[in-house]
């Protein structure tokens, strides 16, 4: 079974330029996540989709970041314009989230390899 696919793997851009990242989740997974990971830190959630609906985008800097999930499958994360502080690894993850039973969340996430962004 294919895992989560992300592209590109690496991207170097000048500040103020736009950049886009693409993610193809595991087939059948209803939930998709975009995370940002700085060196030596854990992943930080940017946005979470359930099917095609963005259900948690509270940490997404909406002045420069945007995301979409077409037909509830692939997703694109865009930054425009990029700033020096945006240099990080951008991770995409997917999961098959089932309704909670007895207060237990079935939410094992499967991650792609990430896109390492360098803003010069």
């Amino acid at each position: 079974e294919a895992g989560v696919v992300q592209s590109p793997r690496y991207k170097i851009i000048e500040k103020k330029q736009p950049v886009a990242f693409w993610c193809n989740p595991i087939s059948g997974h209803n939930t998709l996540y975009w995370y940002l990971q700085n060196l030596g830190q854990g992943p930080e959630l940017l946005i979470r989709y359930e099917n095609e609906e963005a259900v948690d985008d509270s940490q997404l800097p909406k002045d420069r970041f945007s995301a979409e999930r077409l037909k509830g499958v692939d997703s694109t994360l865009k930054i425009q314009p990029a700033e020096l502080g945006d240099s990080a690894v951008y991770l995409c993850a997917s999961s098959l989230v089932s309704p909670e039973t007895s207060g237990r969340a079935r939410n094992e996430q499967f991650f792609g390899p990430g896109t390492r962004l360098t803003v010069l």
Partner: protein
Amino acid sequence: EDQVTQSPEALRLQEGESSSLNCSYTVSGLRGLFWYRQDPGKGPEFLFTLYSAGEEKEKERLKATLTKKESFLHITAPKPEDSATYLCAVQAVGGYIFGTGTRLKVLA
């Protein structure tokens, strides 16, 4: 505020030297605690899910345990290939929160 803290930040072990990694949490309404392994240049890889205090899960040389305030990842007789960053995450009412991880290096 929901919080997840992992310790130590880094750990060096000799091959065969058993040890434990700690993940302490303060969250509202724990719905699950998850352990992941992350190798350099790769995304995190799921290891275990724990739900209730007293629960344990095992996989090869790894065993995860859970109390009401913390989780431990016990590594028994580690090998160099166990070297990685180990992340814990909690699913709470407020969302899914990762700790900063423990970087484990196992020396041959």
